[in-house]
Every structure is written in structure tokens, then in C-alpha cells.
């Protein structure tokens, strides 16, 4: 009942929102993605149902494995063979890379008709556009710079939630002395980089973050602020348990959940783990922004590839429209743990963490402190992200000095830029 109701509403919305030429629903899309695990598969399933309810034909091409590496390999082969899928799960500067290869098409007609510019944060709109036209469609906004806190553990040492990195260090020392692991962390390069960018924002501020991690300014990369960031990383290295190497992020989340550890620094997909274990936000766990003023975002999106045939082009336009409907944005993100990419979606059904995230997002847009994540492929191309991964993880796992780390980082970024 609920579903058919929504489908009817959607068909109505389709008719109302689209320009006459696009009003007829239908068409075919082939979607290449790697949302294959439980919650993610469910989320993409919602889109499939809605697309089919609108009269289209959906060809699902999931390629699991390697965090999308396998899917990228498949995509390369498809594009070389001249038979790309209609839409591909791509994000950040990867969209620009493919656009530069001339492989993408735009859905600007839909975007103009629905006025996407007015409902998307400018940072996201910029990432979705190539040459001023929308070539990709965003699903959601994940916030990266969260600290997930177990309040019961914090109460044991009589500490409150830290609001600066100095407070964080002091609390961590207290926890350590009490025999509690201060920070649950998994020693995988992307997790190291997730902490790193959170610390860069916390110590350097939003402008420094943008200069160093987005614009890759050499002076910023070599600055004393960056040395301070690596100093803090060295301290944080002392707050993780000795057995952290290679641990998956969800196991680290479990450590916070069962009281073994006090904090985890992780994006808001961690919330899904807490909720799945029937923990209540605000009571069993807290979601607090990591020290620092700003919002580091990660957005999932579909890039639209050049396809031929009226049927396929129609499907592509319809898909772009569907993803951006407020109704779908709400449903999708409720199952995935993120918040809608559109800022005008009502958030009544979202929990407190989601509402907090949306409020902070608006504040960040106003204060110009909304930043793309480096660790999650939003800020820089993969080649440069790879250099960040190498240096940060190498520093974290060795006794490299902060000065050496800064020197190596600047040299590595310079080298990657030559590509």
C-alpha cells in the first residue's frame, strides 16, 4: 500500500516537475555500482523500485570488491569498448577525470528545469558540474569529522566531551591512565587519512584546510601548522591500542559500543553500526563534531555516461530527475545513515545526529567552511589522494618526525601533480 501510494505521488511529481518534453516516464538505464552490502543494497533497491514504478527498465550491473576498484576496471573496459553504462557510481574529481576523457554527457536540461543550483550546496554543485553543466547527480552528504563517543566510559574518568584538541589529548591521557583505550581506530590507510583531515581542520581551520588539501599550496603544505598537525597525529598514535593494525572500521565502532574504547573518529556511516545494535543516539552513544570549525563532506553520486539511443537517453534523464526528488533523497538517506544532498528536504524522520548534521551543514555553507574530504575522494584526484595516503599512513606507522613527514608530503604532491 505504502509503496503504490508513493509511486502514484511520484508519477504525479514527474508530471508536475518536468518540462513537457521530458514528462513521459520510461526509458532504459544501466547502472554500474558497488553498493552490494546489506544497507547499501537496500538503498539502491529503493531507486530501482521507483524507476521501475515510473515505467522504466532498470539493468543492474553491480561489481563488488575492492571498494570500487573492480568496478573501475570494468568501467574502463566498457568505455574502451564503446559501450558504457548509463550511470556509474563515481565521486569527486573522478567525475572531472572522466569528463576530461570526453566520456560523460550532461543532464543540464533536467537540472535547469528543476533548479538544482538553488537546492544544492555550491561545493557539491561544483563537483557535479563539468564545463558549467551537470554531468553527475548527488545522492547524499556524509559528514566525516565526527567523533563517536561512549558517554558511560567518559563518565568513568569524569571527563566531558572534548571541544579542542588539547582537551582531547588531556582526556585521552586520563582514559589511558585508567586502562581504557582512548581511541578506537583501524590501521588502514584511508582510516589514518580520515583522522588526518579531521585534525587538519581542527588545528589549521577551514581556510588552511582548503589551501593545503584542496589547492595543494606548497607553502601551506610545508607550513608550521602542518608540522603541528603531524605532531598531533603522533600523539593520537599513542591513544590507539597496540592491536589496531589492519582492523576494519566497523570493528573499531564495536569497541566504542561495548565500552572497550571511548572515542572513534569516523564518518557518519558509523551511526548505522550503532543503530543496528539498537543503541540510542544521545544516550548509549553521542555524535559530536570533532574539534574544529567546519564540515568535511563526502557525497555519493552517479555520473552520466555518453550513451546512444533515444530510449537510453530518456532513461538517463528520468534517472537524474528521480535521484533529485526530495522524496527519494529522504528515503535513500534514512536507510544509508547520511543526510540528503538537497538542503530543502524536511528532516522529520531523521534522528538527532542527522538533524545536527543538517543544521551544521547550513551553518557551514553560510560561513564558507564546507570542505570536501580528501580521504574519501572528494577533494583531489586519486593519484594525489594516494600520495596523501602513503605519507600519512607511513608517518602514523613509524617514528618519522613531523618535519620529515611535511617535507615528504610536499615532495610527493609535487611528483603526483606532474601526471
Amino acid at each position, binding site marked *: 500500500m505504502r509503496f503504490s501510494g508513493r509511486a502514484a505521488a511520484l508519477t504525479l511529481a514527474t508530471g508536475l516537475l518536468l518540462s513537457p518534453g521530458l514528462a513521459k516516464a520510461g526509458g532504459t538505464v544501466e547502472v554500474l555500482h558497488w553498493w552490494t552490502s546489506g544497507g547499501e543494497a537496500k538503498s539502491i533497491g529503493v531507486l530501482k523500485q521507483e524507476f521501475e514504478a515510473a515505467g522504466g527498465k532498470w539493468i543492474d550491473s553491480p561489481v563488488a570488491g*575492492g571498494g570500487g576498484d573492480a568496478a573501475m*576496471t570494468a568501467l574502463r573496459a566498457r568505455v574502451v569498448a564503446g559501450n558504457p553504462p548509463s550511470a556509474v557510481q563515481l565521486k569527486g574529481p573522478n567525475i572531472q577525470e572522466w569528463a576530461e576523457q570526453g566520456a560523460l554527457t550532461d543532464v543540464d536540461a533536467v537540472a535547469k528545469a528543476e533548479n538544482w543550483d538553488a537546492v544544492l550546496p555550491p561545493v557539491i554543485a561544483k563537483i557535479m558540474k563539468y564545463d558549467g553543466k551537470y554531468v553527475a547527480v548527488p545522492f547524499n552528504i556524509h559528514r566525516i569529522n565526527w567523533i563517536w563517543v561512549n558517554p558511560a566510559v567518559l563518565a568513568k574518568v569524569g571527563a566531558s566531551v572534548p571541544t579542542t584538541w588539547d582537551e582531547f589529548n588531556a582526556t585521552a591521557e586520563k582514559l589511558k591512565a585508567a586502562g581504557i583505550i582512548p581511541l578506537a581506530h583501524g590501521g*588502514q590507510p584511508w582510516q589514518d587519512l580520515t583522522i588526518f583531515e579531521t585534525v587538519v581542520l581542527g588545528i589549521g581551520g577551514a581556510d588552511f584546510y582548503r589551501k593545503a588539501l584542496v589547492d595543494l599550496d606548497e607553502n601551506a603544505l610545508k607550513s608550521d601548522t602542518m608540522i603541528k598537525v603531524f605532531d598531533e597525529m603522533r600523539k593520537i598514535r599513542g591513544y590507539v591500542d597496540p*592491536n589496531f593494525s589492519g582492523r576494519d572500521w566497523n570493528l573499531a565502532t564495536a569497541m566504542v559500543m561495548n565500552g572497550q574504547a571511548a572515542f572513534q573518529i569516523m564518518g557518519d556511516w558509523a551511526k548505522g553500526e550503532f543503530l543496528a545494535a539498537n543503541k540510542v543516539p544521545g544516550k548509549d552513544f553521542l555524535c559530536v563534531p570533532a574539534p574544529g570549525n567546519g564540515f568535511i563532506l563526502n557525497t555519493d553520486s552517479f555520473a552520466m555516461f555518453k550513451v546512444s539511443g533515444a530510449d537510453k537517453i530518456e532513461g538517463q534523464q528520468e534517472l537524474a530527475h528521480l535521484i533529485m526528488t526530495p522524496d527519494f533523497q529522504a528515503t535513500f538517506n534514512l536507510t544509508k545513515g547520511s543526510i540528503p544532498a538537497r538542503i530543502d528536504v524536511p528532516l522529520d524522520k531523521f534522528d538527532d545526529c542527522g538533524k545536527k548534521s543538517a543544521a551544521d551543514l547550513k551553518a557551514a555553507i553560510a560561513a564558507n567552511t564546507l570542505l570536501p574530504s580528501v580521504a574519501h575522494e572528494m577533494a583531489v584526484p*586519486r*593519484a594525489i589522494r*594516494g600520495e596523501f595516503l602513503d605519507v600519512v599512513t607511513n608517518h602514523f606507522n*613509524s617514528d618519522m618526525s613531523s618535519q620529515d613527514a611535511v617535507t615528504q608530503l610536499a615532495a610527493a604532491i609535487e*611528483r603526483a601533480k*606532474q601526471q
Partner: protein
Amino acid sequence: MRTDGRRLLANPETWLPRLVVAPSFAVILVFVYLFILWTLYISFSHSGVMPNYRFDGLAQYIRLWHTPRWYVALANLGIFTSLFMIGCTAVGLLLAILLDQRVRAEGVIRTIYLYPMAISFIVTGTAWKWILNPGLGIERVMQSMGFTGFHFDWLVDSRMAIFTVVIAGVWQSSGYAMALFLAGLRSIDDEIVKAAAIDGAGAFRTYFRIMLPMLRPVFLSVFVILAHLAIKSFDLVVALTNGGPGYSTDMPATFMYAYAFQRSELGMAAASAVMMLATVMAVIVPYLWSELRAGRQ
């Protein structure tokens, strides 16, 4: 023409073997050698996310040799290859000599030692990952037995992690070396051993002065097989440490994979692949040459 055709039909043995081999020959020609050449070209091109055929000279190689991670991969390859070969040879030879003493139930023991070879490096890597994990494996067992001072955390120590790969590799492959050595030992003429015994040579001397020198060709085979296993080692590292902690156990093969598939740097990945090919050639070509020359004589 017609008589020629009839003669060909009458003698299938002149053309049938070639016909049967031809498809696989063609497939290998295309999918191995042609793609080696293609990779070679890509390594001199400006390729990023997609192959790009613009010639770029040695730029990719220059970048490769300026990358600290590549040096880590090379150093690891050196450490792993040498220790893996020495370890497998020593353990394999020792086991072969011990088995050669006509022990009871030799067949069973031989199978047990050879058995790790039957499972893939992925399984070996995963099993050893648990065994060596300080929170699950040996360290925890020893500590729960009361040896609280016992520490064995090489797997999570970036300086020692590469040695855990050696341990797992030797465990896996020394049985294979044993089988080769045992076959070699068995092929030595009994008369020679008896003659040595009559001349008053002890067991130790018989092995070190007479039998091992006679195993020279077996040693060579073992070295070549182990060396190429070591150079192309990829799955063991991926399963055991996944290159970590950090990238401290990176090998050229995992380096290449990371650059080609995770970082969209096809050009540099191709350059590293060509460097690996050169390494393998450096081992294989002299061996093939000496074999072919020996065959001709």
C-alpha cells in the same frame, strides 16, 4: 597440387601436432607477448585513468624512481626473496635428507609436508594472519598460559612485518623444495653411496662432499622456481598484511596493483611492471641460456 594434398592427408603426423598446438600458440602470442609489448608502450606514454598513446619518454620511469614507496617495495622484494629462498632451500633440504633415511611411514610424512603446497597463498596468508595477530594468536596463547612477558607482534610492527611474510611463505613452499630434493637424492646411484661407505666416509661427509654436489641441477631448478614465486608474490602479501602496516610490506606486485587499479596511474603502474619483468628476465634468461646450451651439447 593434388598429389601434394593427397600426401598431406596420408601423413597426418606431419601437420596434426602443429594444428593442435596452433590455437593455444596464437592465444599465448596475443595475450602474453602482445600485451607485454603493449604494457611496455604504456610505460612510455602519458596514461592516467585511461590508456593514452601520447609518447612521454622516460617520464613515468623518472617519477617511479623518485617514489619512496617504490624503494620500500624493492627493499622488501630483496629481503623476502633472499630469506624465502634460503629458508625454503634449507628447510626443504633438511626434511629431504631426514626422509631419505628410510623412515617408517615415509609416504604419510611426505604428504604432510607437501600438503601446504596444495592450498593457495590466500588461505596461507589468512591463516597466518590469525596465528600471528597479537590479540588472537601465538602471543595471546602464550600470555594466557602464564608467560605474560611474551611478546610476538611482528605482524603489526612496520619494521618486522615483512618477516612474517617470509615465515608464511617458507611454511608454504618448503615442502615443495623437499619433494624436489628427495627426488634428486633418490636418483643418485646407490653404488656411489656404497663406494663412499667402503672408503670410510661418514654420513655427514657422504652428504656434503658427494651427494649434495651431485644435486647441482636440482638446486638450480629449486632456485629458479622459488625466485619466480618470490618475485611475483602478490596474493600472500595481500592476504597476510595487505601491504601494511602503512605500506611497509609493499612488494612490486602490490605496488603495481595499487597504482593501476586504485590510483588511476596506468603509466606508472606499467613502468613498475616493466621493471618487474626486467627482474624476472635477469633470473630466467641466464638459466634458459645455460639449459639450452647444455641441451645442444
